[in-house]
């Protein structure tokens, strides 16, 4: 059990090795050869970083995608749309449309979020309805809870 946890932890930096702005995107069975990545860049701001009044970072997202099939090949769809969703999936924010190549969408100001790219019937749908083709997690989503780690129970070394 402990070995599994250690493997999981050590695998994490490999996925996000480039730093706090990089998101690896994963394909789904709907478009298995699609792949890509995303990078968070601070939204325009006169300050050193862009944040909301309550201190949440405000990012634009550069999505680089490849081998997305024509949206219409997946059904009655016309466009790929990027969404930011809270980890509990209660809130979805439409970020913009995605194409093969690099697209810049934004803003997102959620502390932790899932980046989800769906095929949609419209380039500006009011809510997500179509199938997911790529998805990833904000780097902050990798934050771990250490409350049950042996270290905090006094078991070190």
């Amino acid at each position, binding site marked *: 059990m402990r070995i599994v946890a250690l493997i999981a932890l050590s695998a994490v930096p490999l996925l996000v090795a480039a730093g706090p702005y990089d998101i690896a995107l994963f394909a789904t069975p709907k478009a298995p050869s699609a792949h890509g990545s995303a990078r968070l860049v601070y939204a325009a701001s*006169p*300050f*050193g970083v862009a944040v909301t009044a309550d201190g949440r*970072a405000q990012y634009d997202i550069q999505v680089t995608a490849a081998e997305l099939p024509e949206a219409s090949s997946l059904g009655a769809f016309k466009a790929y749309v990027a969404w930011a969703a809270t980890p509990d999936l209660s809130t979805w924010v439409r970020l913009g449309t995605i194409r093969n190549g690099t697209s810049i969408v934004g803003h997102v100001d959620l502390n932790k979020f899932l980046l989800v790219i769906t095929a949609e019937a419209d380039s500006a749908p009011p809510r997500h309805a179509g199938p997911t083709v790529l998805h990833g997690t904000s780097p902050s*989503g990798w934050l771990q809870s250490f409350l049950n780690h042996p270290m905090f129970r006094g078991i070190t070394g």
Partner: protein
Amino acid sequence: MRRLVLAAAALALGMAPRLANAQQQEKKKPPVSMDDMAGMHHDSAHISMPIPMPAGMPMIPGLVGLTPSVTEFLPGNGTDPGKLPAARPTRIVQLRNRDTLDLTAGLVRRTVNGRTFVMYAFNGEVPGPLIRVPQNATITVRFHNRIDLESTVHWHGVRLDNRNDGVPGLTQVAVTPGGDFVYTVHFPDAGIYWYHPHVREDVEQALGLFGNIIVDAPETDYYSPANSEHTLVLDDLLVNGDTLIPFGKEGPDFALMGRVGNVLLVNGESGYTLRARRGEVVRFFLTNVSNSRTWNVSFGGAPIKVIASDVSRFEREERVASVVLAPAERYVVEVKFDRPGRYALVNSIQAINHYRGEFEPQADTLGVVTVTNEPARPDYSRQFATLRAHPAVSKEIERYRPYFDKPPDKQLTLTVRTTGLPLATVQFMTIDTAYFAPVEWVDGMPDMNWLSTDKQVRWILRDDATGKENMDIDWHVARGSVVKLRIFNDPMSFHPMQHPIHLHGQRMLVVSRDGVPMRNLSWKDTALIPVGSTVDLLIDASNPGDWMLHCHIAEHLGAGMMMAVHVDGARAGDQR
């Protein structure tokens, strides 16, 4: 009650492992000097006070009982605070060209949040005297060091004559206790500046040695009109009950993250108050003088316009929801208080609870602006609603625009090296690597931070071209050249953190961040470099001399994060 139980459990669990740690460290480490055994002291003659932890967070059991490897230092050597003068609020000192000011750093009795401490002050005032001078004035400041440490005065952001820059070992010899030094300070740029010692900033600045300078432009409409103006000096102080957490005598403690205070202060006091009239437009000059904290300040929902930063106005005024200030940064903003009532001045951030792996919003009320029903006269509603452009700023920047896209002339990587930290710290930092926030707004791990000193932590500016680090870097640039400096804050280090990088004596533009051009520029002397970011700075190397470039987190500076930039050319006299 719950915290007590946790602490007791931590103590019980901490005992045995601590011994095991020490043995393991002995085994694994190569031969070390006593200094390298840093953090391993259990000697009660050293600092033994526990560090205040955030609510609900126990110290890591493996750290319980450890103390930083420094001799504790508090100012005054046990002086009875009752025998010292009480610190007074700031007074405005209006100076003209060729005027002289006596500036004395001394001991004071300062009451913060109902608790009295021995601290430092300039001329007995916290913040120090607010010096107000016309642009292009030259003043003489006779500095008198009457504290118990060596000191100097650095005129932050002011493009003055190099020999008056206040950097010991580079521009002057440090002023010993009882000694004096005369500074000639010329103010070529309008705006908001500040002064502070350039010796042990982690101690002297933290204990109250800072003050503002407002340099007034000759133009009466330099800023859009306001009914009143006020300085807001943002600071924090780390206290544990009735005592200050002691400082390190030989060098800084809190070397990992810098000392982050648990009492937030505006103009040296908690509970800032201001009265304004309905519809009043207030111009605030904000300065972050805290050792490490980055602030995110708002005014109870009142609309904010940002007008200027360190060394100039922005190209155009901009509406913002809050004001973000890294250490040493300044911003000039205007705020309009439309309705009668109370507006809370708040610092709002998203803390990271490293134990739970969650973000936790924190909002600290710094004070209250009480707005009366009486209408403000004149009514500046129309001017406030207009976002003015500052064509003079854009026109001047236009000369530098051809350099924006040139390849960088110089590149620095920001990183850290550690040795001999407590095993539990190393273990935690090694596994808590999945995510480093671009900006750490608050100290989420004060136990680990407290126990780290400059003996164990070396913060590094590394010259990519030569591999040289910190003071071994020897950059010479020609006076009058425009230097593009690319700074990368490497996220793949033991403990990455944001760094506010300050360059003395020159001005610079932040032209892009992570490849994205900045759209609204102002001249800066300090630029925040978040973790993982690459920031391109364009330096107007116009002022000859030997100038520091360093991180303005006081403990990072104290742990080595500094270098010198030599601007070669004719000396003052024919400058500019």
